[in-house]
């Protein structure tokens, strides 16, 4: 055997070893972190209940239902639309593990784009997981991607054309759940998930839909509520409540010409009050420095401090960063305020929900204090 053949075999074996270990690392993202069903959860159903076409696919995700004894209004909370926006996901998990509904029904989908949790974005250097200390030990959560895994939906077109409007966006947006609404039964994988969520809202007659997000500190719509015009009176009330409690939040109307997003399409294609909330997340931003678990949890980033000094950001940024507990607290405060505001806006849609951690308690005690032990 020639020398070159020996070296080729050695190199090929090396390649197989690297492929095996890297493949195993990538596949580990498919392992789902535990979510503990809290005392208020009355049932857990699959999203495919509302669109059987999703059954068995990575678009089929858990819907946690918390039904009160008394009939009343209903609210849907969407977490994990973009799994690289951890406060949105964690806020929905905290709801599932803590909240008790006395009147009405609360629906929570923590992993709205379940496929996007199974990978993270190439060349971003993002961590695969982050860990939260609890009194019972550590809990782990995945830090996924903004978009559906291309293994589940490919190829991306050069230009993504939104089916209902003809709006043109860059090709990769075809895998963005929050550009695919109202969805299509015979559409792409992502559009089918959108379609199932829309069907669920229509089937259950859900009164209020809150889509949780985070945004880069350099993005103008941040620490904000975006509301469909029908939801605007409620959203205005919520913004006033939050601001009067010294939680700085802006209010933006949902543009009619920006299509495919929850606050536009769910408001137009269902009877729900559609709103979206954003908090500030450095770990998804373009100006960030080192991207690691610490950045996800603390939001402390010297690069963003510098950007703030240069007046380039839309949120204040100092050495305290924007910790996860503050971002989760903002979302929870917003959700509670929306439920209260909707209840006073229309008595038929009234809900009574307890055990949502207060803003102050979440900030002072941290997320871990509100996570349950995993059996």
């Amino acid at each position: 055997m020639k020398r070159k053949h020996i070296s080729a075999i050695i190199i090929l074996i090396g390649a197989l070893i690297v492929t095996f270990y890297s493949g195993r690392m990538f596949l580990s993202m498919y392992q789902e972190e535990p979510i503990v069903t809290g005392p208020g959860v009355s049932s857990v159903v699959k999203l495919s209940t509302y669109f059987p076409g999703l059954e068995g696919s990575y678009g089929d995700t858990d819907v946690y239902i918390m039904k009160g004894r008394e009939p009343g209004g209903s609210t849907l909370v969407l977490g994990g639309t973009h799994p690289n926006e951890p406060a949105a996901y964690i806020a929905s998990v905290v709801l599932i593990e803590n909240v008790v509904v006395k009147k009405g029904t609360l629906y929570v989908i923590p992993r709205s784009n379940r496929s996007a949790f199974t990978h993270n974005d190439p060349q971003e250097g993002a961590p695969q997981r982050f860990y939260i200390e609890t009194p019972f030990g550590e809990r782990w959560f995945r830090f996924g991607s903004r978009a559906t895994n291309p293994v589940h939906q490919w190829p991306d077109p050069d230009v993504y054309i939104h089916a209902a409007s003809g709006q043109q966006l860059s090709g990769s947006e075809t895998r963005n759940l929050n550009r695919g609404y109202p969805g299509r039964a015979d559409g792409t994988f992502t559009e089918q998930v959108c379609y199932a969520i829309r069907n669920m809202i229509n089937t259950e007659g859900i009164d209020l839909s809150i889509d949780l997000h985070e945004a880069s500190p350099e993005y103008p719509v941040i620490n904000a509520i975006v509301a469909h015009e029908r939801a605007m009176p409620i959203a205005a009330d919520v913004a006033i409540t939050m601001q009067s409690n010294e939680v700085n939040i802006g209010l933006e109307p949902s543009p009619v010409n920006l299509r495919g997003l929850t606050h536009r399409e769910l408001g137009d294609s269902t009877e729900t009050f559609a709103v979206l909330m954003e908090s500030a997340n450095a770990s998804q931003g373009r100006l960030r420095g080192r991207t690691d678990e610490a950045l996800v949890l603390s939001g402390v980033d010297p690069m963003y401090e510098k950007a703030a000094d240069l007046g380039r950001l839309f949120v204040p940024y100092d050495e305290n960063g924007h910790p996860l507990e503050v971002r989760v607290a903002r979302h929870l405060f917003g959700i509670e305020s929306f439920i209260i505001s909707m209840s006073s806006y229309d008595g038929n849609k009234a809900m009574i929900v307890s055990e949502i951690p207060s803003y102050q308690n979440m900030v002072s005690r941290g997320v871990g204090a509100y996570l349950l032990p995993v059996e």
Partner: protein
Amino acid sequence: MRKLSLLIIIIAAASLFTIGCGGDESVSKTSQQESAVSVQVSVKALEGPIAETPIILTSAGQSADVKMIESLLKKGGMEYEINEVLDSSGLGEARTLVIAIGGSSKGLGAAGIDAEDEIDRIDALLKEAAAKGLTIIGMHIGGEGRRGELSDKFIKASVEFVDYLIVVEGGDKDGMLSGIAAENDIFMSRVGSIVDSYGALKKAFP
């Protein structure tokens, strides 16, 4: 010759680097100083009522702040009408025009108008309101978040026409709003939060 070229390149690179670093530092210091100093300009405080109902509420810049003001008026039980895109022919029987100042690109998109058209609308509306003898109250309640290139256009287009200006103080850190108020002899209240802005508005009515 080659050594000389190399030397020139090194000197040029070093000077560029020095200029670059120096520039960054000065920008950083300037902006730090700007953000640390809150400019206070003395303005004329409102001493008694100057307005009467009915109120017509509109926006300058199409931000959703107008909806928050509406929510406050509704909770306060004040008589009002709202039209975010009110034009100069729509003032009707109103005696007071309340204008929510602050730009939003999403809001302009929602209304389907561009910033220049919005400025033209406000200009014509405010001139007509002044000609009809309406009291004009401007409210900038969005704080720091409703400042910047887009919002400042609407501030400049509207504030000089108002009789009374209510500002949530985060929006006037650089003294721009109080500067215009002082220059034009406008009554002005600086308040801590949006909820306080309702108290300041109420003071304008008997």
